[in-house]
C-alpha cells in the first residue's frame, strides 16, 4: 500500500475517523497499532513477525540494560541487541552481497569457490525500523532515555505506519513521550497537514513519476545517448530522487500529524545547500543525524586530529552508502561523500568557519553538481556502467546520438523556483488565514489538478528498496 494510491487514502480516512472517535488514549494507541500492522502486512504478512521479534527483543533488552548497574552486563545486553538487529539486517539485506563479493574475491586470487546466494526477500522498511530500535537501546544504554512505559508504546513506536516503510527514522526520545501525553484533535493543524500531504503527493506522483520513465529510458540504454542527454538525465534523476523521497516524507509527516503525532523534519531544501556538509544537514536529516550521533560521534567525532576526523567521516559515509543498499555502487557512493565531506572539513579548517557570500553563492551550483554526479552510483545498475556514465559526463563524450526532449529544462527551472520559494517560506502558516469553506474549495481544486497530472499506475517510492 503506497501513500499515493487511492486505497491508501481510503485506509487512512478510515483510520483517521476511527482513531479520533475512540474515547480513550489507550484505545487509540491499540487501534493505531492494529492499523500499523495491517498496513505493514499488506506487503507481506510474514514481515509482521520480523518486526514483532525486533520489537520484543529491544523492549526486553532495554529493560535489562536500564535495570542493571553493572557496566559490563549493560554492555553485554547492548551487544545482544546490536548483534541481533544488525544480524537480521545482514541476513536479509547483505547476505547475498557478501557471498557474491567473497566468491568474486576468491576467484580473483585463484581459489575455486562455489557458494550459492539465497533467494531472500528484503522486508520493506527493515533498514528504517532496525535503526529506530537500535537508537532506542543505545539511548537507554547511554542513560539518555527511560525505557518505554509499556510494550504497547514500544510496539507502536516501531511500527507506527506513517513512518514505517521509508522513514523518517524516528528517535524514541522524540516519539515515546508523545505516546504518554494524550492529544486532542483540536491540537492538530488539519489544514496544515492537508497542505503538506498535497505538496508531498504533487512532488511524488506528479513530478517524480513523470520524470521516472525518462530517467529509466536513459539508464536502460545509456550508450545510445549523446552527452547533452546524459547530463539532462542526471539532472532529472537528481530532481526525481529528491521529490520522490521528500514527497514521501511530507506525506508521512502529514499523516502522522493528522493522527496527532509529530515526526522530525527529514528535508530542508537540500538542493540549495552551499556546501556538502550543509547538504547532509538538510538531506535525509533523520539518517544523517542518526549516523552522526551513533557512528561518527562514537568514533570520536570531530574532536580529534584531522586524519582521525577524515577516518571517522569515511567510515560513517561508507556505512551510509551501505545502509542504502548492498552493492559496490553504494559503497562508492558512500566513499564519494566521505571524500567530499573530508574535503569540506579541510577547506573550512583553512578558511575559517564563517562562509563568505561569494562562497555561499558559488557553493550552491558546485554542491548540486557534485551531488548530481555522485547519484550516478545511486542509480546505475552496476559499477562498470556507473564508471562509464561518469567518464562520459565528465569528458563530454557522446556514446551515441540519441537525445532527450529539451522540454524538461524549462520544467526543471520552474521546479527550481518552487523549491526556492518553499525554502524561503514567504508567508509561514498562510493557510490559517483562509476561511475553512474557501480552503475546502481551493484544496479540492488543487487536489484535482494534481490528480489530472498524476499517473494511473502508481510507481513505488525509490526509498522503499532500502
Amino acid at each position: 500500500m503506497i501513500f499515493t494510491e487511492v486505497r491508501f487514502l481510503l485506509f487512512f480516512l478510515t483510520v483517521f475517523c476511527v482513531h479520533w472517535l475512540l474515547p480513550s488514549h489507550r484505545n487509540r494507541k491499540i487501534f493505531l497499532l492494529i492499523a500499523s500492522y495491517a498496513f505493514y502486512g499488506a506487503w507481506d504478512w510474514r514481515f509482521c513477525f520480523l518486526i514483532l521479534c525486533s520489537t520484543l527483543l529491544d523492549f526486553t533488552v532495554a529493560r535489562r540494560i536500564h535495570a542493571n548497574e553493572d557496566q559490563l552486563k549493560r554492555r553485554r545486553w547492548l551487544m545482544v541487541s546490536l548483534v541481533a538487529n544488525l544480524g537480521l539486517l545482514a541476513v536479509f539485506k547483505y547476505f547475498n552481497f557478501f557471498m557474491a563479493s567473497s566468491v568474486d574475491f576468491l576467484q580473483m586470487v585463484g581459489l575455486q569457490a562455489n557458494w550459492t546466494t539465497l533467494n531472500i526477500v528484503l522486508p520493506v522498511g527493515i533498514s528504517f525500523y532496525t535503526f529506530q530500535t537500535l537508537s532506542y537501546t543505545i539511548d537507554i544504554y547511554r542513560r539518555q532515555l527511560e525505557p518505554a512505559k509499556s510494550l504497547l508504546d514500544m510496539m507502536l513506536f516501531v511500527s507506527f505506519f506513517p513512518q514505517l516503510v521509508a522513514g523518517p527514522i524516528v528517535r524514541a526520545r522524540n516519539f515515546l513521550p508523545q505516546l504518554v501525553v494524550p492529544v486532542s484533535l483540536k491540537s492538530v493543524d488539519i489544514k496544515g497537514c492537508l497542505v503538506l500531504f498535497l505538496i508531498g503527493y504533487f512532488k511524488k506522483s506528479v513530478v517524480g513519476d513523470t520524470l521516472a520513465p525518462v530517467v529509466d529510458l536513459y539508464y536502460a540504454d545509456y550508450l545510445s545517448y549523446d552527452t547533452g542527454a546524459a547530463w539532462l538525465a542526471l539532472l532529472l534523476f537528481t530532481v526525481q530522487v529528491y521529490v520522490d523521497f521528500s514527497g514521501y516524507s511530507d506525506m508521512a509527516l502529514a499523516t502522522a500529524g493528522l493522527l496527532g503525532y509529530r515526526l522530525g523534519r527529514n528535508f530542508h531544501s537540500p538542493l540549495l545547500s552551499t556546501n556538502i556538509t550543509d547538504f547532509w544537514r538538510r538531506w535525509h536529516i533523520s539518517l544523517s543525524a542518526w549516523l552522526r550521533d551513533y557512528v561518527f560521534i562514537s568514533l570520536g567525532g570531530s574532536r580529534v586530529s584531522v586524519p582521525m576526523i577524515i577516518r571517522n567521516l569515511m567510515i560513517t559515509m561508507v556505512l551510509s552508502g551501505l545502509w542504502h543498499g548492498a552493492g559496490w555502487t553504494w559503497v562508492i557512493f558512500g566513499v564519494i561523500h566521505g571524500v567530499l565531506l573530508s574535503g569540506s572539513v579541510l577547506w573550512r579548517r583553512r578558511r575559517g568557519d564563517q562562509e563568505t557570500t561569494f562562497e555561499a553563492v558559488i557553493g550552491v551550483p558546485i554542491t548540486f553538481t557534485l551531488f548530481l554526479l555522485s547519484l550516478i552510483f545511486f542509480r546505475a545498475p552496476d559499477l562498470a556502467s556507473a564508471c562509464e556514465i561518469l567518464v562520459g559526463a565528465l569528458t563530454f563524450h557522446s556514446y551515441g546520438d540519441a537525445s532527450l526532449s529539451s522540454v524538461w529544462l524549462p520544467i526543471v527551472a520552474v521546479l527550481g523556483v518552487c523549491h526556492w520559494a518553499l525554502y524561503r517560506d514567504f508567508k509561514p502558516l498562510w493557510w490559517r488565514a483562509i476561511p475553512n469553506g474557501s480552503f475546502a474549495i481551493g484544496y479540492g481544486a488543487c487536489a484535482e489538478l494534481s490528480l489530472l497530472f498524476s499517473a494511473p499506475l502508481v510507481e513505488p517510492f525509490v526509498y522503499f528498496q532500502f
Partner: protein
Amino acid sequence: MHPDCLVTSDGEDPRPGAARGLVGWRVALYCVLTLASMLVVSQLANLVFPPAERPPLGQKLSLVQSDRETDTLFLGASRVIRHVSPEVFDAGMAERGLATRSFNTALPAMFTFEQQHYLDELLELKLPKLRFVFIAPESVHLSGSDREVKTPRAVQWHTFEATIATSRGILEMDDTLADKALTISRHWMAFLHHTFNLGTARSQLLGTAVGEDIQLASHELASGTRGYRSLDDAMTTDAEFRGRLEGRRSDYLSSLPAFFEAVENLRKAIRDGVGSSELGVEIVTRMQARVEAAGVVPVFLIMPGSSHGSRNYVREAKRRGAIRHLIDLGHPDRHPEFYAPELQFDLGHLNELGARAVTATLAQKFADLIDRGDISVEGN
C-alpha cells in the same frame, strides 16, 4: 513549513476562534465542498484535456477512420485480432459474389465491458459505408488484475454504468466473498480514477500513456494488414514480442495433453451451460441495440479458443432470441477442425494457417446468412 507547527503539544487550538466549533455537519460540509470543487475542476479539465491517450486504441481508431470505404468491422480481443484476416474474409465473400471491405478493429485483452465503450467510439466515427459489425464478446467475469483496472485503457471504460456492471459480473463468480469484495474494490478504484480524470492532462502533455503494456508494432498499424496480425507473423517480425510468444508456444508444445484436456473442459462447460450469465445476456442485447440504432447489422461471433471460457451467455442470448445473428465457430463438437493441434499457435490461439481457415469459414457462414435472406446485403 516546519512540521512542528502541525501538532501543538499543549493542546492549544492553533486556529482562529471561529474554527473551534469544527464538528459534525461542518466537517461534512467541507468534505462536500472539496469534492464538489474537484468535480467542477475535473469537468473543466475535460474541455482542455480530452480523454487520455490510449496508444493501441487511439491508433486503431485513427486507422479505421482513415479508410472511409470500410463497410465491415470486426470487434473483439486477441481471438479476433489474431484469427480474422480481412483480406481472406473479403476474398471469401467475393467468391460468393459479395463485395466487402473489412477491417479488424480488435485489440488484445479487450474485455466485454471495454468492447461496449470501444463500440460506441467506433460507431461515433460514422463511417459512411459501414454495414456490418462483427462482435466477439469475451468473459464478463473479471479478476481485477492491473491490466483490467490500472492502464489508461482500463480507466477509460470504467464509467459508473460499466463499473456497476463489472461488480455484478464479479458477484456472479465462484470466488469467496472476501475475494469478490477485493476485486470489486479494485474496479471502483478505477472508477475513481476515471471520474477524477486521473492522469489525463499528463498523458496529453507527454503524448504517451504510462503503464500500457499492450502496444502495437508499427507494421501492425500499417494500413495494408487492415488491423490483422497472426501470432506467427508477430513472432517472426517483432523482437520485443518474440520472447513472450516463444514462451507461450513452447508451453503449448510441451504440454499437448493439457491442451486436449482444456478442449475437453470447454466441451463440458458448453454442455453444462457454465458461464450462462444473465449480465452477459443483458450486455450483448444492449450492444445489439446500439449497433442497430446506428443503422448497422450486428453479428455476434464465438471464436475458437480452448482457454478463455465457454461464452455460453452469447449462445443463451441467441437461444432466447435476444440477439439475431450468431456465428459460433468455438464449439469443439461442431468445429473440431479448429481444435486440431496443427492449427494451434498456443493454448488459446490459432496459428496463421488456423486463422486463414477460420476466417474462410466465417466468410462462408456469413455469406450463407445473406444468401438465406437472414441479413440484407445492404445492411440495416
